[in-house]
């Protein structure tokens, strides 16, 4: 790694990720629907982005030179909302309104409703394309901001994802980073059983992305990969982050069952206990 990280950085990020995971469980329970599995798998990536990597400021959410984050896997909205709330972009009590009528917290992220949501996503295969457009815009305008697209692995079965990656490689967008939350599962089961996407890192390389494979739950590796991406001037970077679907909640891990299902009260409380909430404070 180029420079030493502050000693407290990684423990601090880990603590924030734990808070976000707890919020994901609470929010999907309160909402009665949502996508906990893919929210828990992407939490560490989003934590690293929102609390360390992105140049974003809750006081200046529209600053033209802010970095852009496009959550292409828009169903992981609970994790992003929780991260943005913790970062000061919205009141944390508003997390209770996820998926409720009139809420700014739509089931899939909705640009214009909340600061720091740069693009509406949810219908898959569109986020990287929008990120490529944003990166081209920044280059054309001479802005130094960077663009980060967070991609799901089921979305790698969608042709337009590859159209967009082909464009990112063609235009040598050094200001673009695509992070793949490679948790191995989509709605109906494992990606490799349904329509295999491996060897996924080779595919990114073939599309002219500088490609880094990491453990997507190891902050040291995540930060190092992001730093490497920033230092890569020749073109775009893909970070293939191997993650665990449902990470942090034993009964949600490594299964597709919790892709799009909310926990019951008992399940949510069990999950929160696993996430370190004391028995006495767990009641929802």
């Amino acid at each position, binding site marked *: 790694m180029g420079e030493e990280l502050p000693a407290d950085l990684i423990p601090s990020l880990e603590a924030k990720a734990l808070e976000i995971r707890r919020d994901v469980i609470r929010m999907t329970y309160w909402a009665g629907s949502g996508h906990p599995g893919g929210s828990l798998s992407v939490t560490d990536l989003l934590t690293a982005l929102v609390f360390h990597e992105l140049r974003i400021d809750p006081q200046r959410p529209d600053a*033209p030179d802010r970095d852009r984050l496009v959550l292409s896997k828009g169903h992981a909205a609970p994790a992003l909302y929780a991260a943005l709330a913790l970062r000061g972009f919205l009141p944390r009590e508003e997390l209770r309104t996820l998926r409720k009528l009139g809420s700014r917290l739509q089931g899939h992220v909705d640009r*214009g409703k909340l600061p720091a949501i740069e*693009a*509406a996503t949810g219908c898959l*295969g569109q986020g990287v*394309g929008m990120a490529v*457009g944003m990166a081209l*815009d920044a280059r054309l305008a001479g802005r130094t901001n960077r663009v980060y697209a967070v991609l799901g692995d089921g979305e790698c079965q969608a042709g337009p994802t590859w159209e*967009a990656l082909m*464009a990112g490689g063609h235009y040598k967008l050094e200001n673009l980073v695509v992070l793949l939350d490679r948790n191995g599962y989509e709605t109906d089961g494992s990606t490799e059983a349904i329509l295999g996407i491996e060897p996924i890192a080779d595919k990114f390389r073939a599309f002219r992305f500088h490609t880094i494979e990491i453990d997507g739950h190891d902050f040291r590796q995540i930060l190092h990969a992001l730093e490497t991406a920033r230092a890569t001037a020749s073109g775009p970077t893909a970070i293939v982050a191997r993650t665990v679907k449902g990470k942090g909640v034993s009964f949600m891990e490594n299964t597709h069952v919790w892709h799009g299902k909310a926990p019951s009260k008992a399940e949510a409380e069990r999950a929160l206990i696993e996430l370190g909430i004391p028995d006495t404070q767990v009641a929802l």
Partner: protein
Amino acid sequence: MTEPRKPESLRDAYGKALVEIGERDPHVVVFDADLSGSTRTMLFGQKFPTRFFNVGVMEPTMMSMAAGMSLGGRAVFASTFAVFAAGQAYNFVRQSICYNHANVKVVATHGGLLVGGDGGTHQMVEDLGLMRGLPGMTVIVPADAPTTRAATFAVHERDGPAYVRLTRENLPTVTDGSFAIGKAAELRAGGDLTIVAVGALVARALEVAEELAQVGISTRVLDLASVKPFDEPALLRAARDTGAILVLEEHSVLTGVGALVASTTSENYPVPVRRVGVPDVFGESGDPWALLDRYGMSKERIRDEAWELLKLRGKAT
């Protein structure tokens, strides 16, 4: 079929207007998907190569890229054939552009049957229904080159998404180019019958109106180039004044302008409405103008429908 007035290219008018816009708006960007010679965006690309992106055959992602490009504050044009813009890329126009209220102008050429030889795969007759149904979308169908030019400027000046449908064939000039979004152009005054038309069929509407005038029937002709928002007052005035409306469109009668006129009058001022357009079928290869005749939009058919309406109103026997 002989066209009475000098036909001009709508696509050329679009390409030239884009160049003018490029000169006065240094931020405007244009996308195309490997059809820049046909759509004429190449004219812009030659003049402003750094602001022109030919992304190859990937219409869906072109729409997402155009949306992403616009969200930083630019006006962006994206062009390809109508079947790709509204069909292939539909959900990308829907989510990336319209849902984000992105400032992207989708200018689609080769709308309708007048594509001719390429055949039914490429003859887009459902696009107006698809695009009109998108919340926040402005939809324009110019009838001639001057309206194309004016509409290109108009959508550039209006913030938000727009869909402009152009015809491949050259079309005679029928307007004075004084197009405005939301306004219908009354091209001919009349009190016995109204013909509402869009695109290539506006010229046929005027020809039939002229023929009817020879036998003493006075026909009002409205060019409804601004399909959304559309000029509801002008349409209802026509319903009140003439009591019958014939609609002409080179589009499926199920979801196009005829459906719009019928539902609007039905709710506000019911009068007999008849729709001339493409029935519920795909097209086929053929001479462009012969296709219009073959698929129910011949001048004879238009005339017959006009007489049917006049009979219904007791103005003919």
